[in-house]
């Protein structure tokens, strides 16, 4: 029923576009493909003009494009960027991971608990050295990956209808455990000196992660399987792809990214682990991936655009803060941009279909279109 309506809408749009030639359609398609980048640039230009022209004329300084603000906004965007990389892989398999915010909380609390109970304990032989730091990082990552595995395993082996269900469960369970594990909802203060400095290197961490995952998706077989599973799980299974393994692996990776986000954005940024960490960040990560043009139906999306999506969200927040606009407007604007991004994706689908329709007969039969 919904499919019928959708087809009807597509047909309507196609007729309205019939007048265009294939060449101009191709141009339009390229423009839409770089849509997220265009939105990012447009937002930067608008904020630069509004904020910096104003401050230049009043005080002779630039604010938005100042080195300090650029470094601030990149660091602020790091958490969502890291989460978005994990979320992208999940969404490419047509899945969703609602638990990442809660996993940030539980992994930061467990790591900081271990550090304050064991290493900072005056009776222990541990000190802030290489081994304890490595162990700390390992514990945090293991908690994230472990809970991610439970998500994936419950979804695949539990034959659940949709990953919405196990990850929604984990959203509650993870947050609840984080509160239970912390001092009556308080925080564990103290992290390794190296982790405390991670915040300053957040941009580098994001860059390395994005490059690594980009390479993995393009060059490594398992990475290409992720797209195949998202595009069509049945045919993927038929050609011998380990669909269950691929599906579980993306949730493990998403959990791992949540733990990495906790290392950089919670433990590194605030030098503590606390149960309110990462509140609502799953929604920001999903928004980043969708603004970055990935398809909710799976099979399409790339890491660079997901990163651009995360940057768009962070820059909107930063720019509106600088304009001293009520923080509630940030939610409104982010919501509207999601709508624009998804609409761009719909238009793109229509144009691609139209192009195929235009080209197919002329290519195969020699008739003029």
């Amino acid at each position, binding site marked *: 029923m919904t499919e019928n309506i959708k087809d009807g809408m597509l047909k309507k749009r196609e007729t309205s576009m019939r007048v265009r030639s294939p060449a101009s359609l191709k141009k339009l398609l390229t423009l839409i493909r770089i849509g997220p980048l265009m939105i990012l640039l447009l937002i930067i230009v608008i904020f630069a003009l509004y904020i910096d*022209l*104003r401050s230049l004329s009043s005080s002779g300084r630039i604010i938005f494009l100042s080195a300090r603000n650029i470094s601030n906004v990149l660091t602020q965007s790091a958490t969502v960027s890291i989460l978005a990389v994990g979320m992208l892989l999940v969404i490419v398999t047509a899945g969703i991971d609602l638990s990442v915010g809660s996993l940030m909380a539980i992994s930061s609390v467990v790591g900081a608990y271990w550090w304050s109970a064991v290493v900072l304990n005056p009776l222990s032989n541990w000190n802030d050295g290489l081994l304890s730091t490595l162990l700390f990082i390992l514990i945090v990552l293991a908690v994230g990956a472990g809970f991610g595995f439970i998500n994936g395993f419950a979804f695949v082996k539990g034959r659940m209808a949709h990953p919405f269900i196990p990850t929604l469960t984990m959203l509650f369970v993870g947050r609840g455990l984080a509160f239970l594990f912390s001092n009556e909802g308080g925080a564990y203060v103290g992290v390794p000196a190296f982790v405390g400095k991670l915040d300053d290197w957040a941009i580098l961490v994001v860059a390395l992660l994005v490059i690594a995952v980009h390479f993995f998706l393009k060059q490594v077989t398992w990475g290409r399987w992720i797209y195949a599973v998202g595009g069509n799980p049945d045919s993927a299974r038929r050609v011998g792809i380990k669909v269950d393994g691929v599906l579980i692996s993306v949730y493990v990776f998403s959990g791992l990214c949540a733990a990495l986000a906790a290392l950089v954005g919670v433990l590194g940024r605030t030098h503590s682990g606390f149960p309110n960490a990462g509140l609502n960040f799953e929604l920001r990560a999903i928004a980043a991936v969708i603004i970055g043009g990935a398809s909710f139906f799976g099979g399409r999306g790339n890491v660079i655009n997901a990163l651009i999506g995360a940057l768009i969200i962070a820059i909107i927040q930063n720019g509106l803060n600088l304009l001293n606009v009520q923080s509630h407007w940030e939610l409104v604007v982010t919501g509207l941009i999601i709508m624009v991004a998804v609409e761009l994706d719909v238009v793109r689908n229509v144009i691609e279909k139209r192009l195929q329709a235009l080209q197919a007969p002329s290519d195969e039969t020699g008739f003029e279109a």
Partner: protein
Amino acid sequence: MKRLFLIAMLLLMVLPAAFAAGDAEGGKPLICFIMKARNSQFWEGVAQGAEAAAAELSDELDFIIDWAPTEADVDLQLNAMEDCVAQGASALAVAPTAPDQFRPFLQDYIGEGLPVLLVDTDVSDLPGKISFVGTDNVTVGRLAAEYAIANAGGNTAVFLEGMPGVTSGDDRKEGFLAGIQGSAVTVERSLTANWDRAQAVTVMENILQAVPNPDIIMAANDNMILGALEAVKNAGLDLDSVMLIGVDGNLDAVKSVCAGELDLTVAQNTGGMGALAVQEGLRAARGESVDIRIDTGAILIDASNCADYGG
């Protein structure tokens, strides 16, 4: 398409210029005030006090006020603070939602020479902070005691404590005990009801078994005194012969005061807190001396003025 683009570009060029014409100023110190949120009566009161004070001082300072959507959004409050400071703040007044998470940032700012004032919630272990501007809960307790001594019909008092170990509740009790010293008032029972209304009903019922006719019932917050009120009503005591005192100035409590049930609720001076954050922030920005602890005082709300506070 081209024409649209041209028009858009023109608009983009012209609008900021229009903005710029509005505020051609510079050289004034920028005071950043970062609140926890602005989604409650309490924070609205603080914000309005701060905005009014900043408007009055607008010739001498630039003022930015910001907050997170809710008090749980630690990360967004940190972002708001960073974004304000990046605009060249001369002083920062901040009410941190989570003192432990704010400490590393505030340490950095203090290291860079930025004057930092804490508002409403203090951050311990923060050498170099300029001041803590907030309610002194010992004063709150003392004011309640003085009111009780002056207005109650007798000298038998009972006290409902807050959650054990929470400083604000401990301080209120300490202030109350200090306030009744030298008077004839004695505290016959003092028990915790964990800030909770339902628990306060039970605790008060138990207390009434041992102390059947108290003259003064003081609770460390409004929730608990409203619970105690239920117990007192259930026991059939005459409300006119019992003085009931709460703390916070919650709307529920203020309405109950106006209805002639509760006698007093001691409210934090939210408007004054916001105003002092701005005024003392400006003094700090100018390098003038600021007290390390500034008590923003409290407001006594009883039958004489409850209508002014929404009752």
